[in-house]
């Protein structure tokens, strides 16, 4: 292996390969795209979902495993192919059927519509969450909609109605964290002792003109 080659981090931590292919194809119907006009596939939304499922969303593992299996059983029956093997047009037809809760086999209390809602919600998260979570690769999701990301702040000039900010460099959480390390003085430092470190000096809270010097007494009866 070439030591200079960057390590491949697209390994899957929960999905089996055909599950990833299925969920990736679903996400690509939800937010379609291609290399020139990225959508959920190009944003690597499936990796967001995969990492979430082996992490905080582990409770949804069963729903994905069952849902993908049921969906592919339906498409095998109807088209002789797995969902991700279908044409985009056929995939769209199936997604419509799924959204309406009309794909059979999902069982009581776990309708096809619920599966769609879940994949959809996670696709949106994967498209528009910080790239640190595995999706929104190269901030393509943010660039699509014009969101500049994790910005420290905006100037009055930037907040003018109609001003195009697409040239403003997009910042990720990683970027702002670098800023925190390099420029801590830009951030707020709470004065006074922290709990369990009780100092002897009472910090002076600064006064504004007109601030009462003594605590006010009880008003009214």
């Amino acid at each position, binding site marked *: 292996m070439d030591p200079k080659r960057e390590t491949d981090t697209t390994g899957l931590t929960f999905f089996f390969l055909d599950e990833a292919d299925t969920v990736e194809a679903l996400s690509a*119907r*939800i*937010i*379609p795209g291609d290399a020139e006009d990225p959508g959920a596939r190009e944003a690597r939304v499936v990796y967001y979902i995969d990492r979430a499922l082996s992490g*905080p969303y582990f409770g*949804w593992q069963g729903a994905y495993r069952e849902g993908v299996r049921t969906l592919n059983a339906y498409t095998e029956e109807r088209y002789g192919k797995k969902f991700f093997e279908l044409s985009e047009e056929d995939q769209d037809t199936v*997604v419509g059927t799924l*959204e309406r809760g009309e794909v059979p086999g999902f069982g009581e209390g776990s309708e096809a519509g*619920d599966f769609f*809602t*879940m994949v*959809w*919600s*996670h696709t*949106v*998260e994967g498209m*528009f*969450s*910080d790239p640190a979570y595995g999706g929104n690769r190269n901030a393509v*999701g*943010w660039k*699509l*909609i*014009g*969101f*500049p*990301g*994790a*910005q420290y*702040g*905006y*100037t*009055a000039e*930037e*907040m003018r*109605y109609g001003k195009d900010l697409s040239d403003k460099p997009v910042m990720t*959480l990683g970027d*702002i964290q670098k800023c*925190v390390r390099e420029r*801590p003085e830009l951030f*707020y*430092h*709470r*004065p*006074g002792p*922290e*709990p369990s470190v*009780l100092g002897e*000096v*009472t*910090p002076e*809270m*600064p006064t*504004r003109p*007109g601030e*009462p010097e003594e605590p*006010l007494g*009880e*008003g*009214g009866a």
Partner: protein
Amino acid sequence: MANKKHADVVIVGMGAVGAILARELTEAGFTVFGIDKGPYFRSDDFWTKFDELRYSTRAGLSPTMDTDPMTWRPNAQTPAQILPWAVGPQPLNPLWLPPSVGVGGGSIHWACWAWRQLREDFRQRSEWVERYGEEKLPEGSHIVDWPISYDDLEPHYDRVEYETGVSGKAGNIDGEIEDGGNPFEAPRKRPYPFPPLRPSASNQLFVDACEALGYHPFPPPVAIISEDWGERKACVYCGFCRDYGCHVGAKASTLDTMMPRALATGNLELLTNCRVQRVNVDAEGLARSVSYIDAKDERHEASGDLIILSAYSLENTRLMLVSGLNQNGMVGKRFMMHNYNWFSGTLPEETHVYAGPACAGWAIDDTNPYSEDRNEVDFLGGSPVMYFSGDVQPIEAASLLMPPDVPIWGKEYKEWLKHGYRRLFGMYSQMATLPSNANFVDLDPKVKDPYGQPALRITHDWDDNDRKAALWIRQIKHGIAREMGATKTWEAPLLPPYHVTTHEMGTHIMGEDPGTSVVDPHCRSHEVPNLFLVGGGIFPTYSGYNPTLTIQAITFWVADHIKQEIQNGGVLTRFSVTRSA
């Protein structure tokens, strides 16, 4: 602090209220235990808060159903379920959960609108009866006058504004109407300590439209400083505001405004990540201690001569019920909240709705309940209309704010996202539910939290008054949006499918009559003389304004009372509340 097991005062919940009480009472020389379910955040903990998924979509600061379950049913005839809008794969909205836990509580992540109530809001019954007659009060409602007045609280409102840092433009100083402020506001003694924030430029379209329609737009008061103040820096308009801590200390979080001095006294011991399970009352009917579970799941008791519950209206009430403290049956009653009537739209050009705080948008208060004759409309209530010009992040926009006529998948969805997000604007309002017997909270008979504690059960549904009020204010927003030249508008459902709003009021209401209220005019429990319940739960009626400033003013009012009572040898001294040397 000599003795860990006992303090003069035990405060349960160190949020928007508890931290104020901690500072006031420790500075008065009392030893205090400050207990909170959540952690103590250091200021650098929020330096990297720029993460919508963590703090908003996953409600990173809020108590969620897995650790703090609550149930809801629309009426007593329907079985309750765990809050349906707070479970499932869809994005959470922290606005549909109780406020955040941790020292600072909801004041860490609030949106910071800092209104005072109107003078009339404190005497709602008298006002409406005078204007419309008693017949107009809806059947089954329990609209009353507060036992305290705006004038009682005015000096305390002033304190909150000057001590925590509120930015705004006064509209009425001592009866003189000031240009550029809210002409309808109650009279105040002096200007705000800080000038208004900078709104986004689409705000000007709102202002122009309102003026053209004959309304009186103004910058609302907000608890975000617009100029540097000591270590706290002025707002930098990052747009990660509501749902997030502040990386520059501009937001008035009690963590920053109250805790430093409280900690410096040496009289405060913080018990964080501790869940209070019960208030323990002795055979003589005095509160003696609270039982709590610490972060290691070990059980403890913290005893005090004075016990204060300030853990949010709903948690205060849950603790009272779990402790068996509901002699007169009023605990849990008069559950009220706000209907936000979210209204969204797009404008022809870029609005930068991701920049700046939402609360920097201007507002009109012509729509308050007392500024115009409501005889021709058949509802009671009113609310400002607030322009929502910032603070909207992508995931929320792409999921919770979608226009109902735009597909949520496919090419059209992508096109909408591409063009719609950058042109987004919003308006919202806060029509309050009326206090009635139909809406209340109690303990769920089945559902428990992971520690075996009964969950709170909410019984609430929107009623006719809510519907009519919502329809009325919706058409006003439509009028403004039309005048603004909006290219598209849409609204959230008229009556929301969620029933928790971070603006829950009532359930332990204030009143002079011990038969029909839970606490007296100083928030002391009628049933247990050394127990206080402070927070939105004491509101006997609700207004159209965000409640926090009023709650914090009442908190200063209560703190002063407690201090003076003890100083003057009042009833509290019977319970051996002592000062440290």
